[in-house]
């Protein structure tokens, strides 16, 4: 898909996310919006996946290690036809399969997450299995930056480098905010880049809300050999909606009626900008 179309798709997904959270009255707004461009690039350009053949053993795998950004995932999976769009209306309702974190009872979800620091190790297992069976699929894991404080994640980092999992791509949604405030105030992470490099990864740092950079980076890192790739995707938490951007309280705040109207209006205007 060409860049403009991907940008439009991301904008549409953002509208879907806002609608989902507004109607369910729950959700992780900021992190879903910061991750939207990354996940749009993966699902509509990079990954070989097919909703009509969702158990294809050769499909690429995506693991949402920052499981709380599930609203972006549900909206994308519905849009791609993994389940009927109407099901989105059941999100977080009593008895729904669409819960507040990824649930592999839903087609298209590879692994249940929610507790942070788990996604990288399960992705390591998938990537290693591909190597063992000479399969060509790639594995993508989206992590949060607050999540980088989890020790289990670094167990995964040394494992992936040790086994030279060059079919694995880790992405950090580096929006610099977590639930209590700035990541650097809560538990300093910089220089994150150097940390991952020293663990033996090939590290690329990009603007994670820029579709062109995302597409280019995902395409290029497929040729990296003998090392896993880590993309530090510098993003804006709440990207696309002015009053949500970079606001700590929007980690899991739900829009009021007027905020909802304004958010949709801003995203409509954003779409017009893309058209120009």
């Amino acid at each position, binding site marked *: 898909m060409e860049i403009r179309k991907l940008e439009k798709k991301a904008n549409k997904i953002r509208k879907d996310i806002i609608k989902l959270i507004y109607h369910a009255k729950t959700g992780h707004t900021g992190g879903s919006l910061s991750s939207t461009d990354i996940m749009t690039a993966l699902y509509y350009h990079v990954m070989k996946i097919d909703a009509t053949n969702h158990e294809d053993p050769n499909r690429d795998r995506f693991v949402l290690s920052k499981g709380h950004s599930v609203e972006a995932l549900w909206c994308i999976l519905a849009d791609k036809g993994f389940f009927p769009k109407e099901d989105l209306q059941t999100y977080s309702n009593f008895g729904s399969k669409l819960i507040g974190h990824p649930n592999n009872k839903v087609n298209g979800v590879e692994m249940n997450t929610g507790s942070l620091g788990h996604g990288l190790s399960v992705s390591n297992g998938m*990537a290693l299995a591909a190597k063992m069976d000479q399969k060509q699929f790639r594995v993508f894991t989206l992590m949060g930056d607050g999540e980088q404080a989890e020790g289990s994640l670094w167990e995964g980092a040394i494992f992936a480098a040790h086994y030279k999992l060059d079919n694995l791509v880790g992405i950090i949604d580096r929006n610099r905010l977590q639930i209590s405030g700035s990541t650097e105030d809560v538990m300093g992470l910089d220089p994150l880049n150097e940390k991952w490099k020293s663990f033996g990864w090939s590290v690329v740092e990009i603007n994670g809300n820029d579709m062109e950079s995302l597409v280019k980076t995902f395409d290029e890192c497929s040729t990296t050999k003998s090392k896993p790739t880590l993309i530090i995707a510098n993003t804006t938490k709440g990207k696309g909606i002015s009053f949500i951007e970079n606001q700590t309280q929007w980690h899991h705040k739900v829009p009021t009626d007027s905020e909802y109207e304004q958010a949709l209006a801003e995203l409509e205007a954003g779409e017009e900008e893309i058209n120009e």
Partner: protein
Amino acid sequence: MNKIPNRKVVNDTLMKYAKNNSDIVVLTSDSRGSAMLGPFASAYPDQFIETGIAEQSIVGVSAGLASVGKIPFVASPACFLSMRSVEQIKVDVAYSNTNVKLIGISGGVSYGALGMSHHSVQDIAVMRAIPNMTVILPADRFETEKMVEALLDRTGPTYVRIGRNPVEDVYESTDFDYTIGKANELHSGNDITIIACGETVKIALDTALELKTEKNISVRVLNMHTLKPLDEAAIIKAAKETGHIITLEEHSIYGGLGGAVSEVTAKNHPVPVTVIGIPDETVITGTSKEVFNYYGISIKNLKSTILKNIKIK
């Protein structure tokens, strides 16, 4: 006296089947020696994965492998596997429903004098509280072999605990019926029932044999090798027919076999249940046998408990 530890049987049985099934993979956390999996690692290097001392990683990696169709067996000390990685077991294995077989080695008080950090006497309580987990403690080398074969025939999250040292044989061969989730009655009797699991089964059986000869007391012995799913029917039947149950386990008296049996009797047919196991304290220093004797996991204590309770009846 048997000299073959259950650990070695796990290695040998997996080697037998790995030959024709390349999906069988074994993972260790710097524990291939203590798990006696060196021969497997040498014979099937492409089906052997070392994770280093990283129990959270080993469980997560196994879940990922299983999601792609591999059949991972994780062999790591029970104390670390059941505690350090309990959240990975809950989320990546049980909740995600991945076909991971966790083999906790050197379990219970096998590590003896190494102290509480190395004992695993809470693992049954933890594992059986997690939905979708199967929990198994084999009684001897023959049952261990049949268990590994049974695990290969079914899919689903499983935690197994085996000890470090050779266990005296309970069975004479592998020629017996073994079904995961179904207790084996090893000695018939209606005066009282002992329900045991793992390495305590032999003690229960020997007690029953001695009491039969010495006092003509007939003790029913149930080998409850599967702690979950629990054979409730066998427990209810024993409660109705013998009126008193003694549970014997290498585990805390809280939440293990005794707890599981009591939950069933309380709901279905209340009878006295005497729970024998490790009390709620830091385990005393000693070998497994010394520790067992100190806490009454012994023929001597079982006999006196039974004689006391038979009189009451």
